[in-house]
């Protein structure tokens, strides 16, 4: 759903967004965002907000964060030209390779940043939620790195479909807590992490994994993930000789997408397209295309667009990719849709599988099922807009998806016969 903002307001909001003044001091991106949390957590959120104000942009924090990104995460990640994919699509395709970051996805940028912050704020332990397991693995690794105990909440359904990541988390020293309530996926895991935080708001740091939740999380995660877009923008200028015509990123909660898009918002000629999970169809419960089909409401701490019924109950979702299987989306994306700066579309399970296979065959990159949605949509766009320069946020690698992928037989020797 596109929420209605009048044209003057939309222009002013977009200008504010590009000028870097959002969220406002109430944690709002225009109408979206805010802080809807139980009273027990209010002091913890106030402390977090003060801690961010004190540390996030301090020289000491930035130095430590940048150093960890460089020497431990392996940044900057490569920008890769994709010649064979380009030829097939009739386009010029560039890939921002977050799959090459330590632990295999963009999630690590946020996890190590927040873990450093948690340490500075004196936290005794860290809790996190995970869908695909990528944020769980990143949190486990970051906690080991800074020396804090870590517990990861993960839905029972996701534990099954992302088994390799469960094992990785355990080996990295984290405790994995199976969530059996609710829909047993990401949304239930967030609910459960919040419940745990309520029991120890002073000693526990909640390391949220996407640009969702109550203020200041959407802001914090955006700031930590913006390194993706900052690097990509410079790399495009250096390697491609110019900025892209369009940039694509998949959207679950929206952290890799906001990280890629935020530094590009001011380049108004670049079309920005977020891709949600279209699942198996348009019906309620068949997809996780929140921005395309949802309505405004409050879920898990912020006012954004959510998938809900007319009574305000949040709807279950379906996606082949655990990391996109979520009924909400970050409030900044709701705003960027409302002001018309970013377009949000969806790709189906089948299209994502197809795109994943094509990228394997043409470029030798096994991308994550989440990321594959961005490719599927970019391919469609390229057919309609021939000859354009396309940037794709390759948010993560697909090794974790092998249990799912083995259910779909590979097209053997596709390369030889192509």
């Amino acid at each position, binding site marked *: 759903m596109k929420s209605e903002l009048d044209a003057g307001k939309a222009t002013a909001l977009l200008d504010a967004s590009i000028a870097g003044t959002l969220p406002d001091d109430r944690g709002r991106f225009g109408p979206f965002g805010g802080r*809807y949390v139980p*009273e027990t957590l209010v002091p913890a959120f106030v402390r977090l907000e003060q801690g961010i104000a004190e540390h996030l942009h301090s020289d000491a924090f930035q130095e430590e964060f940048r150093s960890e990104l460089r020497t431990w995460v392996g940044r900057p990640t490569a920008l890769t030209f994709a010649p064979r994919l380009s030829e097939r699509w009739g386009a010029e395709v560039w890939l921002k390779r977050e799959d090459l970051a330590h632990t295999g996805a963009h999630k690590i940028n946020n996890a190590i940043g927040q873990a450093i912050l948690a340490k500075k704020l004196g936290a005794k332990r860290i809790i996190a939620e995970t869908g695909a397991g990528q944020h769980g693995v990143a949190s486990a690794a970051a906690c080991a790195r800074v020396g804090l105990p870590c517990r990861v909440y993960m839905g029972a359904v996701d534990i099954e479909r992302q088994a390799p990541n469960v094992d990785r988390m355990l080996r990295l020293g984290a405790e994995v807590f199976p969530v059996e309530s609710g829909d047993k996926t990401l949304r239930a895991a967030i609910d459960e992490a919040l419940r745990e935080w309520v029991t120890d708001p002073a000693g526990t740091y909640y390391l949220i994994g996407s640009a969702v939740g109550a203020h200041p999380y959407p802001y914090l995660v955006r700031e930590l993930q913006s390194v993706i877009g900052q690097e990509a923008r410079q790399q495009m200028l250096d390697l491609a000789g110019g900025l892209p015509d369009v940039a694509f990123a998949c959207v679950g909660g929206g952290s890799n997408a906001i990280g890629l898009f935020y530094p590009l918002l001011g380049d108004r000629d670049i079309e920005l397209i977020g891709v949600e999970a279209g699942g198996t169809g348009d019906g309620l419960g068949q997809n996780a295309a929140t921005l395309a089909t949802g309505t405004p409401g409050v*879920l898990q701490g912020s006012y954004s667009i959510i998938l809900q019924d007319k009574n305000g109950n949040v709807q279950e979702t379906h996606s082949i990719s655990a990391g996109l299987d979520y009924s909400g989306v970050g409030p900044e994306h709701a705003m960027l849709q409302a002001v018309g700066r970013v377009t949000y579309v969806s790709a189906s399970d089948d299209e994502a599988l197809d795109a994943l296979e094509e990228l394997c065959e043409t470029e030798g990159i096994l991308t994550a099922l989440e990321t594959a949605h961005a490719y599927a949509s970019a391919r469609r766009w390229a057919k309609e807009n021939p000859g354009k320069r396309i940037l794709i946020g390759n948010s993560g690698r697909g090794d974790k998806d092998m249990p799912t992928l083995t259910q779909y037989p590979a097209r053997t020797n596709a390369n030889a016969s192509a």
Partner: protein
Amino acid sequence: MHPHEKIGAAIAAANDAGRTGLVPFITAGYPDPDTFIDTLRIVAAAGDVVELGVPFSDPMADGMTIQRSSFTAIENGVTLAWIFDQLAAAEDIGAPLVMMSYLNPLMAFGYDALAVRARETGICAFIVPDLPYEESADIRAALDNEGVGLIQLVTPATPDERLKLLAGASRGFLYAVTITGITGGDAGLPNDLAGYLDKVSSLSPLPVCAGFGIRKAEDVINVGKHAAGAIVGSALVEVLERGDDPEAFLRGLR
């Protein structure tokens, strides 16, 4: 008398009679939508004010017991509109009602319509566990128009300055959460409860009702020494879940 004032009056009447105000909580339409009003009457006869829970898909401040009752009620078709319709069709329930709901179902209903429907059906105030004071201006104004209250919660983690703010803003009673945690815990009441409740009571112009972790007569007695009322939620929902007699359970608490 405004609807929200009936709540304080009911608690005060219990206190005047030498009792701690008893505020039982049930999830509306649980365990069986067909017996909702009957169950409510039984509970209202034993309690001074009844707290009625609107089931929600993401009850993030609730433990397993209330989660289960909430999910069952949703499966059985219980919605906010249905609850209002049932209440509208029933004769006087016998006690002032307080509605507990997460914010999203209230937002989906629309605040102005909500306030009117609440007044019409005997809902005197709302408790919204995921709505901090700072985000409450819209719904507070709408409820205020109809004389319906918005009950604020305070917790052991609430700093004193904030406690004063919330005590001043609350309408109906002030909800003192006894523990740092979610509903339905079985860790028992904290040792320093008396000091905390005394402080809250001294700062509140309204009667203070304590809730979370109150399960048995002894708890009600302990809480009653330092607060005007005791809210009993998960323990009562467990009684309903087991199919036991809620009346006998609540009589045992008085």
